């Protein structure tokens, strides 16, 4: 009887802990936070586009684009670009959450990337 009782109690315990692990609200919150972070990075990239201007981004040389993006980067947030035949020297480190937007210019696409420094 005692063994049965212990087994039932253990079963209830394991089932409950398993259910809590499966329906883990923290994981959802982390994902939601990641989406919010991505939205915030995308908004920042739009701010960069507005500041530099599409006509300028279309005409500017890779060097000019890369050095202008440095002024939009700071200790916590980095911005970089990738064009048809160039990549700015810095890119998001592996595992870091980043956001990108693609500008489809007739001469070729220009991708702008943003990520938080030191945030996995």
């Amino acid at each position, binding site marked *: 009887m005692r063994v049965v009782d212990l087994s039932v109690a253990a079963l209830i315990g394991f089932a409950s802990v398993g259910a809590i692990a499966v329906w883990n609200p923290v994981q959802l919150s982390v994902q939601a936070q990641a989406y919010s972070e991505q939205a915030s990075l995308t908004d920042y990239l739009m701010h960069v586009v507005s500041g530099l201007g*599409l006509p300028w981004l*279309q005409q500017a040389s890779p060097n000019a684009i890369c050095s202008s993006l440095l002024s939009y980067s700071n200790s916590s947030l980095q911005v970089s670009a990738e064009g048809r035949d160039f990549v700015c020297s810095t890119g998001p480190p592996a595992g870091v959450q980043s956001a990108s937007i693609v*500008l489809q210019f007739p001469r070729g696409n220009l991708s702008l990337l943003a990520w938080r420094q030191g945030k996995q």
Partner: protein
Amino acid sequence: MATRKAVAASIASSIIFSSLLVSNFVVYSGAAENFRLVSLATEEQAFRVQAALATGISLLDLIDGAQNLLSSGSFACSNATDSVAQVLSSESVNIGAGSLRSHSTVTLAPDGNSTDDLAGLQPFNGSVDGMTNLEATTLAQGAAPDGSVSYYASEQHFLNIPLRLGSLTGQCLGAEAEFAAAVGGLGGDMCNSTVLLGAASAVAASVSRSAAADGFVVSVSYFVTSAQPCRVGYWISAQQQNIQGPEGAFTFTEEESGYLEA
């Protein structure tokens, strides 16, 4: 007694774990709803961003196209505005970005000042009094593959190209009128090369000076086509040079030609 205690412990553990489960479910439901809303907002933002970029790039393409059309030939001074309007109305741009499609067209806008909230197209956004202003209509639509978000936006934007079309046309037509008045007024002496040269040179120098003061280049050429009856042909060229378009600097040219008979 021991059995009762064991059953009581089992019931107590059931109650405790059930409470935990219910509490977890309540928190999980809240988190799931928050996640759903954040996902929708993120997807909606992605459409908004794509639409804004597609609109911006479409309008930039339209200005690029307008620059190419305006710089590729010359326009008659007498109907330059109508010709420019006609040429521009042939322009349209289609862009596909992800599941979003946008279609943009442009027309010549009336003179006047108006700001435009479309950021990122400076210095070509908004209309500026005296410049060549364009009114662009953009239709953007799309939907997420799962149908959770759909996007539709019809927008009108004002753009400008720093070409002073009206002023240039005024200079060209003014030069023509001045030449006709000066040379036509010579009457029978029109084909006297010395008299013609004097009158025509004075007009050419005068209109050229006046145009230069306004930032234009206007030149007047003339030639005697027949002496009997006396007939003088003229050709006027009016240019605005170094117009800063999105594709770099370009020149817009208007021309007018005709004959004067004594």
